[in-house]
């Protein structure tokens, strides 16, 4: 029996300390995902709390067919998307946003003084939330294509395409700035 399964069983038996351990084990994943969707720290923490309340509420339905982290990430993704839909945020239109991001950045005078990290951070934060989440799950949380597909409900091909387009856009922006000698 894995640690996760033990924590789930103890939590279901009413052990709140076990649930706190479970939260501590998976809070990094949930916070990283939520930070890609909700930039405001207060709103983000509220969303993360709601996610773990939902996890607790649904814990008895966890069958152990997938990893607990994948199951929690699925709940986090759905709740994050619902939050964005309520705010009428554009979720996946990369073309419009990337064009806007690049043109906006080019018009910003201080960009020349910024380093690579800041340029990438600004470009990344202007990607649509779904792209940011997919990239975060793959690179920061080391989730596989299949796991990301399970979490987001998107086909594996779409996940790969999102990763490719997001990375390619960031690479192009960085490459063009380097080429122009702006960095």
């Amino acid at each position, binding site marked *: 029996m894995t640690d996760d399964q033990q924590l789930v069983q103890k939590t279901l038996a009413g052990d709140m300390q076990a649930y706190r351990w479970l939260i501590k084990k998976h809070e990094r994943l949930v916070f990283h995902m939520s930070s890609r969707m909700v930039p405001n720290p207060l709103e983000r923490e509220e969303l993360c709390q709601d996610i773990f309340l939902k996890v607790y509420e649904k814990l008895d339905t966890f069958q152990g067919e997938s990893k607990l982290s994948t199951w929690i990430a699925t709940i986090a993704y759905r709740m994050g998307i619902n939050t964005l839909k309520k705010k009428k945020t554009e979720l996946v239109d990369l073309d419009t946003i990337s064009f806007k991001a690049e043109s906006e950045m080019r018009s910003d005078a201080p960009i020349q003084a910024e380093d690579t990290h800041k340029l990438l951070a600004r470009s990344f934060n202007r990607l649509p939330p779904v792209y940011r989440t997919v990239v975060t799950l793959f690179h920061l949380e080391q989730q596989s294509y299949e796991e990301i597909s399970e979490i987001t409900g998107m086909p594996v091909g779409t996940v790969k395409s999102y990763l490719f387009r997001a990375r390619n856009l*960031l690479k192009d922006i960085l490459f063009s700035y380097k080429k122009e000698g702006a960095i």
Partner: protein
Amino acid sequence: MNDDNIHEKLQQPAQLPENDPEVDAYREVFDFLSRPEDGHEAPAGFAHRVTGRLEQPSNSSVRLWIPLTAGIFALLVLSLLGFGLLFGWQQVALINTMTNRLLIMLGITLFLSGVYYLLQKKYLRNT
């Protein structure tokens, strides 16, 4: 450079051409993406706040009985008094048909249900 296998290639730098600005740009993008941003970690005491919210409903529902019962009783008395003042006792005495009595009872019930719903929403929103 094809992004599809760049991730694997970046793990084995010997396979990549040196001083290729596009490869360098890719490498920097991958480095950036694998590092967490500051301030995106869970704040201290987060787990306790979540379990605190989970334990809250049972406590609040116990605490809720006293103000709720007192409130309903007070509202019942006030609504009867208000009804009396509005229509006068004599008129109340004239309303003696069964239909009117039932309508009055229904009105009071709806009013009390509304008040109860608002109180419940305020005190038990985390259940």
